[in-house]
């Protein structure tokens, strides 16, 4: 049976072109791969290769013809032993390649929905088991150790995590307990070891990749986003990177612009990632354990300034903090303050001050910034009708901006005042002590913002 050669599309956007030149003539034998003609588009001249074999039976569009539509037959190839008359039966009308695309049925996203959020579920029962007073760095270390004891696939890698015991001593003692197969000092090579960690996760392991600080993880951003976050989707659910990227995030003290930045909003932007930012010891241990157990890539944003602070931390190895659920740290009726990481402590300090002035603030520790526990925030705002977000990140496109938008979408009618954001100033972090202090959010600014939304 004769074969029609159709005008090909040579780029995603091409709709028509010019037949510039026929390189084969009627009667010429054609082999698969032979260039039969050249076509011109507005961008380039391209060669058309035959995909089939036979003899060129007929040229349907003469060279020099412009505006030849994609999928219009341009020639006929006769198969072995076929008569030239077979070519005559073919018309030069374009063949529709496919039916017109069907308008996709609208489906709504489970995450960003225009429907009102369901009321928040009853809060998880408060942990009533044993607690031990320890620093955040100890809580993080115990979280890793406990999970490594129960799951052989879990290992820790990063700069100085093994012999040096951690640049911030978070991995103290782990090398001794688990050996150098599972606690691995890497070269200074963030992009490389992040990618290696993702590959190891593809291969069935559960890596904990420590970045000495998240400022250095920017070098590895491609592997975190393009490889870790997207592979489950791109593979139709066949593969994924169940792993943890962790390390200190945000401002330390007097280390200048390149070492003082909060990346919460950066990672929270990416579907496929989960992002948590612990404040208390309970958060640190419970969220890191949950992150290690999670089947998704989880970014754990710690804070260097909190590493040395002590809390009463649950000591039950089964204690985990569910990712995606916020915690109401302080109940109140007059205003809602949302915060994550170190800012939770600032918010609580501000709340104490406000209480003295007769304003009862409800402080929500977000714990997770992706998924964000919108339901808990909405239900609080329905009660308080006012919202202030506090974060150490820059304001533009920050978590506060996101919360503000969601509250407008989901609780607009409950607001008695515009949402206010308290954040780091919109400048690179200065080194000078006085300027650094001016750049970072502090309780007095939170108090001021709360008074503004309370019209006090």
């Amino acid at each position, binding site marked *: 049976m004769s074969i029609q050669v159709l*005008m090909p*599309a040579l780029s*995603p956007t091409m709709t028509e072109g010019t037949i510039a030149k026929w390189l084969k003539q009627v009667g010429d034998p054609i082999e698969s*791969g032979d260039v039969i003609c050249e076509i011109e588009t507005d961008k380039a001249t391209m060669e058309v290769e035959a995909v089939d074999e036979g003899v060129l039976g007929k040229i349907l569009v003469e060279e020099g013809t412009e505006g030849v539509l994609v999928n219009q037959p341009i020639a006929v190839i006769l198969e072995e032993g076929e008569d030239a008359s077979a070519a005559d039966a073919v018309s030069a009308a374009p063949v529709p390649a496919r039916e017109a695309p069907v308008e996709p049925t609208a489906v709504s*996203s489970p995450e960003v929905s225009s429907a009102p959020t369901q009321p928040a579920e009853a809060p998880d029962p408060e942990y009533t088991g044993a607690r031990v007073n320890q620093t955040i760095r100890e809580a993080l270390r115990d979280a890793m150790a406990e999970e490594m004891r129960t799951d052989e696939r879990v290992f820790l890698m990063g700069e100085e995590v093994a012999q040096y015991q951690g640049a911030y001593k978070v991995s103290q003692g782990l090398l001794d307990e688990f050996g150098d*197969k599972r606690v691995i000092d890497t070269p200074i090579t963030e992009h490389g070891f*992040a990618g290696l960690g993702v590959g190891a996760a593809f291969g069935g392991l559960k890596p904990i990749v420590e970045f000495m600080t998240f400022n250095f993880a920017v070098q590895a951003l491609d592997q975190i986003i393009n490889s870790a976050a997207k592979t489950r989707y791109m593979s139709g659910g066949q593969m994924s990177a169940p792993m943890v990227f962790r390390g200190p995030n945000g401002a330390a003290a007097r280390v200048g612009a390149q070492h003082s930045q909060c990346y919460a909003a950066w990672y929270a932007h990416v579907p496929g990632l989960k992002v948590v930012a612990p404040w208390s010891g309970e958060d640190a241990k419970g969220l890191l354990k949950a992150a290690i157990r999670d089947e998704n890539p989880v970014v754990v944003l710690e804070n260097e300034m909190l590493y040395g602070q002590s809390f009463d931390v649950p000591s039950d190895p089964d204690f985990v903090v569910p990712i995606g659920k916020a915690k109401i740290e302080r109940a109140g009726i007059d205003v809602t303050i949302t915060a994550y990481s170190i800012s939770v402590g600032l918010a609580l300090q501000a709340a104490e001050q406000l209480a003295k002035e007769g304003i009862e603030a409800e402080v929500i520790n977000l714990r997770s910034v992706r998924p964000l526990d919108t339901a808990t925030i909405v239900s609080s705002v329905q009660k308080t009708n006012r919202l202030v977000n506090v974060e150490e990140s820059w304001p533009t496109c920050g978590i506060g901006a996101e919360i503000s938008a969601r509250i407008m979408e989901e609780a607009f009618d409950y607001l008695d005042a515009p949402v206010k954001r308290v954040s780091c100033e919109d400048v690179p972090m200065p080194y000078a002590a006085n300027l650094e202090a001016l750049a970072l959010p502090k309780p007095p600014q939170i108090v001021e913002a709360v008074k503004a939304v309370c019209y006090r």
Partner: protein
Amino acid sequence: MARATKSAAKKPAAKSKKSASKKSNDASPEELIEFYRKMLLIRRFEEKAGQLYGMGLIGGFCHLYIGQEAVVVGMKAASKAHDTVITSYRDHGHMIAYDMDPKGVMAELTGRRGGYSKGKGGSMHMFSREKNFFGGHGIVGAQMPLGTGLAFAHKYKNDGGVNHAYCGDGAINQGQIYEAFNMASLWKLPVVYVIENNKYGMGTSIERASAVTDLYKRGDSFGIPGKQVNGMDVVEVRAAAEEANDWCRSGKGPFILEMKTYRYRGHSMSDPAKYRSKEEVAKVRKETDPIDMLRDRIFSEKISDEAALKEIDKQVKVVVTAAAEFAQQSQEPDPSELFTDVYATA
């Protein structure tokens, strides 16, 4: 390292056909016929993909593998079932070589639910857990640290597996590859880095992109042995792959294979290929085409005759036609699929 560099230097691609190592002559008649069938399947598959692209049935980017078939077919012939493989976006040939179903590959190209990624990955992003094929990656060079991580997992689990991580001569100038080389060598990870040197990174010839164009030497600073291989000769590729695999499996760490090859088509479908002459392409096709060379060998060694190979051609055509039909008949993904596979459920 010096040893390997020397041995490789002694055996440049042009000479290697004659001085092929002992193993390269070991291919049995059945193996040669199977190599022929598989290379032809890749070529016909890619030609069909090009045709479907021209008809608007395949969208976006589509990077064809035509001309390079001997590389993956030879590499696969030396690999074991529990080995893993990862490559870049010019990946259709790899998937077919590693025994993935042409129907599933073609249906992914057309973006249908019958595709390997349910239509959500496309030409550059396909995977098969069953065949240990870990993609299909679109960021140039990123698959090399990932493959190194798969090798890390092989070693951690002590399962005896080796990873084959492929990249092109263009990708080899990405910095993260050298970060991966360093760790692979430092930790003696079982990974074969396969550099498919087809002479052009998109439109830039290797001479215009690389200060040193002998790419098998790129591991020198990390103590990784390298070897230059005639990537148009499937039997020689298989022999080199066996040598590299043995090296890795014996715990000596990574190995680099530079495959001298050539792609006949443009970088992607929309590449007019003005950076090289038609004569250059025609000369490679005429003189060193991997399929034609194998066919000549099959005839000269009287392993098979024209009629028998014609029969294989026919069978291959049937497989490719069936794949193309499946890829057009398979439905587009259900709209509900938009929101699945972002996170693990439960």
